[in-house]
């Protein structure tokens, strides 16, 4: 008796991330087209497509730079110089942000499949030795740990797509929190905004670091806790400990030399 054959489910592959990149580029194109800029917009999408097809590692950063250039040009064309304007929640901005985040995330996930997922370890080498430069010695190439296409799941794709609007809304919230048209001790608003962003990031990092450190200390096992305490003691008394231990080491050698 033959077993009934279940229809094989189509597995997501790298193609799906490429499609997501293409879709994100389309969103970017539409959003910027709405702002009334065609030639630079087309150039931006073309560069994005080229980065995708050529598997360029710097592709996402290049696209971000291009979008920055386009937006600066639109701003310059509208206001003839840097100008601040108050913005409410605009659907075009949300679409643009979602498109950019989608492209960046999908492209980096593709890089994990095409290039390497984990940092390269120079100790792990395999293959025929070759020179990177004529004056370098021959070495086998470093093994790159890539992610297999079969490991892509529908959930991660769906999760990424569904979370895109959330990041766009988060950007809007951050923008709303940023002080605008406010002067403080004679600083122009732009400088003040940069200071606020820098301080926000620094404080945020410190708080998160503190929280995770506390969490780690609470989770530590007995040996790790002993190591932490030992290190704390050593930090406080290393001068005294060093002096005592050196004296003991010297005394040991002297004793041996005297033949005692």
């Amino acid at each position, binding site marked *: 008796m033959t077993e009934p054959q279940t229809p094989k489910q189509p597995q997501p592959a790298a193609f799906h991330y490429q499609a997501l990149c293409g879709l994100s580029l389309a969103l970017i194109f539409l959003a910027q087209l709405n702002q009334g800029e065609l030639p630079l917009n087309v150039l931006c999408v073309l560069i994005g497509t080229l980065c995708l097809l050529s598997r360029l590692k710097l592709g996402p950063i290049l696209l971000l730079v291009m979008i920055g250039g386009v937006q600066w040009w639109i701003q310059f064309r509208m206001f003839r110089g840097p100008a601040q304007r108050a913005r409410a929640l605009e659907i075009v901005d949300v679409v643009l942000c979602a498109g950019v985040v989608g492209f960046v995330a999908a492209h980096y996930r593709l890089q994990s499949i095409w290039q390497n997922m984990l940092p390269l370890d120079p100790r792990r080498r395999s293959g025929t030795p070759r020179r990177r430069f004529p004056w370098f010695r021959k070495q086998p190439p470093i093994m790159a740990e890539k992610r297999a296409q079969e490991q892509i799941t529908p959930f991660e794709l769906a999760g990424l797509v569904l979370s895109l609007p959330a*990041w766009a809304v988060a950007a809007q919230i951050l923008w709303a929190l940023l002080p605008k048209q406010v002067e403080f001790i004679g600083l122009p608003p732009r400088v003040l905004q940069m200071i606020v962003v820098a301080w926000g990031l620094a404080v945020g990092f410190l708080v998160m670091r503190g929280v995770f450190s506390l969490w780690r200390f609470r989770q530590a096992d007995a040996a790790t806790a002993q190591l932490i305490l030992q290190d704390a003691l*050593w930090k406080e008394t290393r001068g005294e400990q060093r002096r005592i231990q050196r004296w003991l080491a010297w005394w040991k050698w002297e004793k041996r030399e005297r033949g005692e």
Partner: protein
Amino acid sequence: MLTLRGWWFFVALLGLLAAALATATATFVLVCFAVLSWFLGQWALFAFRLRRAHGRLGIHREIWDDRTPLETLWARLPAEVRLTLESPVAFPYVWMVDRVPPLAQRVEGENATAGPLSAEQPLELGYRIECPAPGLLRFEGVKLQVADLQGFFSKTLFVRDVRVVRVLPALADARGQIPAVKRHNLIPLPGGHPHRRAGTGHELLDVRDYLPGDPPKLIAWKASARRDRLMTKELESEVPVRCTMFVDLSNSVRIGAVGRNALARIVEITASVLQANAAVRDLTGVCLFDEAQVKAYLRPGRGTRHLYEITNLLTDSACLLPRTDDVPLSRLLPTAYGVVQDLYPDWLDPGVNFMPLWLPFWAAQPAYTMPRRITPAKHWWSRSLHWLWRRLNDTPFGLRRGRASRFTAYYHRLYKARKQIAAVLAVLYDLGPGGLALLLEDDETCRGYVQRFLAEHQVPCPLPFYDDRGEYFFGSPGKIDVLAGALLQAVYRGRDNELFVLMADFLETGPHLEKLLRAVRVALARHHQVLVVCPWPPSVPMPQRKKIVGTLRVPSNSKSALRVPAEDDGIRSEPTTLQDWLGRASAARLHHAFAKVRQEFARMGVPVVLSAEHEAVGMVLHRLQRLRTLERGLR
């Protein structure tokens, strides 16, 4: 935690955000905020998952043969390692590699795998190993590298799960063939006569003509009726043959990789002789000794329990690594640091094991605590000058090599490695609050603990073999006295003619053999037999022998085994490099030492064989056979 890719992206993003804010490009600021919030969100999620998974990752390891899970392995028989990594926290990508113990060789499958990990989807791994020699197989655990889907964040973890599995010696017969059907047989087969001398046992040895005086109860009536004359049954002697093996565990035989050194070969020979003797119900004892003392002595005995007791003893001793006080600490630290990086990556984190960058410049090790050669004054009148010179050298004004080394990057790396290793070892070996400073300042203590740490993890460290004057570090003449004492004790305890097999390295002991030779003479005077098996380094070609040692008759087909083909010698006709010259010189020196040892023992009629020879086991058994058939009962 941030990878190179993550750093580049984060820095570029901050730069673009700054540019957007500077040019007041509102839309692009929004775009940068969106990307930045996504990046920071991924970072927080990754850190959260790592913290949540801390201490909750578990591995389940099983070792299987073809059918069942195993608790002990056999050398030269393949086994499959099955590993499952379980985690209650989901990770999108985990790369897992199992650390194959040094004793084992991976013969099939990969010891690494990668993929997503979650409570419903554990990560599984399977590969086949084979151990070429007996010993202890130490599985440390698995190394994990966790990453996010974009490759921005990565963290190396190690899930410690130490499991030590005993690898018993291969059950081989005298010719070194592994039996396929029945592993061992402690009861002699019907018709076989392990004791060929007539005696008062129960097994029939022969039927012969009746002689006046023979007991009537031994008359073979059926045979007498057939031949029409009186025949008498002859029974075999049941006095067993005893054999005591003296196994050298000193540093000189431990040199080399685990399972591929002279000690592994000695253990293999001992186990083979033990099994062969057990098959014919002979008694075998073992004496393990090193340069300091007799480690263990088991009197000749038989039975399953005795067999396993000796086998376990040999197995536990087979993986010992050499240890010396003469190795500079700077040679040990890089190896130890690599092991700590692999096995205790979380203990090198600056949050728990901090190392100030400026400390090596400020608190470099002073000259007066460094190990130095003690050279006493040659004359009585120069003692004060000698003392003054030493004190001057110890001051900061003294001129000596390496005075400015504290400013080099090498010294800085070494100091950092030492501090972090010292902290880890102080916790591992429970040295107390001052243990860290002790290991940081006292070279001798630190060297001892680092060697112990490496030996426990079965990692061989690079050792020097000779000092500045060309003297061998591992000659250890002390073991001669220990062996001589043990041999005399065995002779004193011996009940009957025994075979004493001395498996010890005498090649580098120099002129210290006299005490042992005296003990051997005592043994020979008591009608015991002595055989010397000399451990031989596997990488050095064996000396070519034109004649067979002693009076042993070796089967003709073994002649080829004693001769080493020229292409296997490792010595080319014309050495071209310095390494070739050194290899040839040290091989010639060992050959000369072996010839000298053989000559010393040959004067007393004691044969000397090399452990690397394939016939070493056969020669021991041949000597036992001769003891059984020819010299039974002569005292």
